[in-house]
């Protein structure tokens, strides 16, 4: 069995985290990965490449938009921004995720009390 840290994310988790990061500030791909890694304190091993299909899905669903710009290291990069729809979507996702998490936590807590 895989180590817990390497467990695959559930579908939509990556998208949710991307949206959350973008809610704080517009970012380009590389920076996004770095932020997620850093914020999760490396608990989540995300294959960096998997970010891009997720970004494309969000673009297609018009939850984010992208513009070419210049990064802090003076590089031509595509910077992603949350749209209004994306913000709404994020809220819904987060609350449903929290409900799910609460449910799971309660079930897991049964044996211990």
């Amino acid at each position, binding site marked *: 069995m895989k180590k817990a840290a390497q467990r695959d994310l559930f579908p939509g988790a990556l998208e949710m985290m991307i949206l959350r990061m973008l809610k704080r500030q517009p970012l380009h*791909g*590389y920076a996004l*990965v770095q932020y997620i890694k850093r914020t999760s304190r490396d608990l989540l091993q995300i*294959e*960096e*490449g*998997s970010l*891009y*299909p997720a*970004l*494309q*899905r969000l673009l*297609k669903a018009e939850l984010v938009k992208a513009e070419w710009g210049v*990064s802090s*290291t003076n*590089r*031509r*990069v*595509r910077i992603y921004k949350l749209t209004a729809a994306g913000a709404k979507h994020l809220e819904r996702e987060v609350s449903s995720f929290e409900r799910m998490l609460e449910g799971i936590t309660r079930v897991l807590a049964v044996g211990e009390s």
Partner: protein
Amino acid sequence: MSWLTQLFSRRQRYSELSEEIQAHLDEKIEESVAEGMSREEASHLARREFGNVGLTEESSREVWRWPSVEDSLMDVSYGVRTLRHNPVFTAVGLLTIAVGIGANAAVFSVVNSVLLKPLNYPKAEELVALHQTAPGAAGLADFENGLLLSPSMYFTYAEQNRTFQSLGVWVTGTANVTGLAEPEQVRTVYVSDGLLQALGTRPEVGRWFSAAEQIPRGPETVTLSYGYWQRRFGGDRAVIGRNLTMESRPREIIGVMPQGFRFVDTDFDVIVPLAFDRGKLILAGFGFHGIARLKPGTTIAEANADIARMLPIWMDSWSNGPGTNQHIYETWKITPMIRPLKQEAIGNVGELLWVVMGTIGVVMLIACANVANLMLVRVEARQQELTVRAALGAGWGRIVRGLLVESVMLGLMGGVIGVGLAYASVRFLVTTGPANLPRLGEISIDARALGFALVLSVLSGLLFGLLPALKYAVPRTSLALRSAGRTISVSRERHRARNLLVVGQVAMAFVLLVSAGLMIRTFEALRAVEPGFTDAQHLQLMRISIPDSLIQEPERVTRIQHGILDKLAAIPGVKSAGFVSEMPMEGFDSAWDEIFAEDKVYSADSIAPLRLYKYVSPGFMQTAGTRLVAGREMTWSEVYALRPVVMISENLAREMWGTPSAAIGKHLREFSNMPWHEVIGVVQDVREKGVQERAPEMVYWPPLMRDGFAPAVRTVTFAMRSDRAGTEGFLDEVRQAVWSVNSNLPLASVRTMQAVYGKSLARTSFTLVMLGIAGAMALTLGIIGIYGVISYTVSQRQREIGIRLALGAQGGDLLQMVLRQGAKLALVGVAIGVCAAFELTRLMRNLLFGVTAYDPLTFAAVAVLLVLVALLACYIPSRRAMLVDPIVALRYE
């Protein structure tokens, strides 16, 4: 964003994506380098942490796509590439498929046009033929037509029915038209009131007949067919109101029917009203075809019940003259058997066409088996490629789909060529097809036939693609990698599929060849039947009619006919000449009546047996080659002297008096007040209704009889025996001879007896040709199949054969070994074929004549033929096996 702009902006989106990913990698590398890593190490790390760049790009792009379709398009372009890289395989496969689909599409378009499409009338499904049977009327109602309607029946049905919108009767005939160019005999259809209304087709120009034109002594009118209008009047619309001189009397042209309008399946030149004299009708006169249009929602059963209800009314309303029993027809047991008009038009051709369709379908299966075999061989050669693809992560579903797309494409391309072939063959069929194939002119490749070809292409593509796909797409990496090295012999399992296909092909080819063989035997049996005339090739026929408007007096009619005979006999090369009211197999409406013998007793309450009768001139029997069995032919002096003499057929003589010679001197008559006619000659039986039908009992009256019974017969077929029959020069002299007697007489139906005879065999010869083609195709494809499998096996076994040779096997042993393998396949195929044929040939029972569906000779001959051919197909590759050089074979790696 609409999907269209999405589609077009995609290319840019993809390149942006690549740029973005590249930037990501660069940034990461530079960061690592800045932290003190070597550039090479940094680049490795970046790629490791990023994952598969290609896959990432692929799945990022996939977000924007419609994956199933685009994958298929990719499969298609890949398929096109592989097909292009194997031109020989592709050509052979394409050709096989194209021929198969072409044949199937052509036959289907015939089936579709003849059997499936509705007749060319408005709401044709409401139209019915008023068919009725009369088991008690021996002879009269024997044949295909059943008991036709009499005029009094028509009036009863038309006036008393509760189930028809309208109803009418019709009959065909001929008439002389003069005053246009040369005198001409035209094909006439006589119709009663209600018939055109029932058919419902409006005239192209002008109007239908009015009721006033359907009574005797009303205005005399005529309607033209489209073809006759074009031919004689150049399509001039001003023709309405002009007169057409028919039978020397003017008739006003009141209408032109539209192009393609026919009576059921009869072409015609003009339509003339019947104008029955209602006051003079009797019960009898059963000579008219009835057509009716059902009221909406009425079933055929209800219409039958309606007719059955009206039959007693008919018998009560009319009689056959004073002192006759009106209810005599109850003994005939007349029963209505109404059937859809389409069925009437198609006749017995439906069964034949389905048999042909079935055989051609089997040919398609054989073709598919062949292509499947080719595909198997090829997929086997591609095993390594497939294994590599599987190893690179292609799922087996994807590989199966790739293979299927390839085979369906092959099927579709074959279908396109096949439709071209079908167009050509349908054109050929329409121009040269058997004249008695109903609705021949309507045959074309329409949308439905094209749809059929499309479905067939796809289905056959799937069929021959499925076997190789299922067999090889499932990745068996280790096996494939090992056997691709050819260091082990080919496994038994790999041969099983191919052997199965070959056995199936041989079995199907057997069935088809047996059907074709049975048709050959049928044709032979028909040719062997003595038709009652000889050397049809050299018997020239023509039909001449002398209307009473031209010549009134009966005896003068006969003298003119006699004069023509003399002139004809004087033409150089004419051995003899005679005339008859109708030649055998000519298909004109025949004449039947009760015939009484002087020495027999007949009950007044029943109808005497009905006999077919004709009028013949002296010398006719000799000219036609109808053998005299006893007695002699009549002479001209007897004819002019009105001597009561008659000739009969051998079967009638035997039925009435036991032997032909006993009949000579006996007496016959048709009506009670007619003089008794003495039987002076008995002639051999003649197959009047076609070679397949039994010869009817016949009475031959003289051409001229006393007034009041049957005055001179005015429409007759002249027959001349000459080696020059059918040549243009001869026909010129014949025309001059006729016109030297009377220049107003048109010649019609000018042809040799061979043409008439050939037409009566047309159904059989058409079936024979079609099944022959199917059989030949099956045999060829079967040979190719066996040859392919055996030669492939041999090439696969080179190494094994090399070892055997090295170990001391003789060439002859190897030859035997390979031949034995082929023979085994062929024998198993034949054995299955015999069982299948026993079941399937039953379906064509009705097409056979003089041979059973289980004819042992045919079965044996086909079995021997197939096995021999199979051995021959094995022989060539076997020779190659024998000549294998052991050293080369062993070094084959």
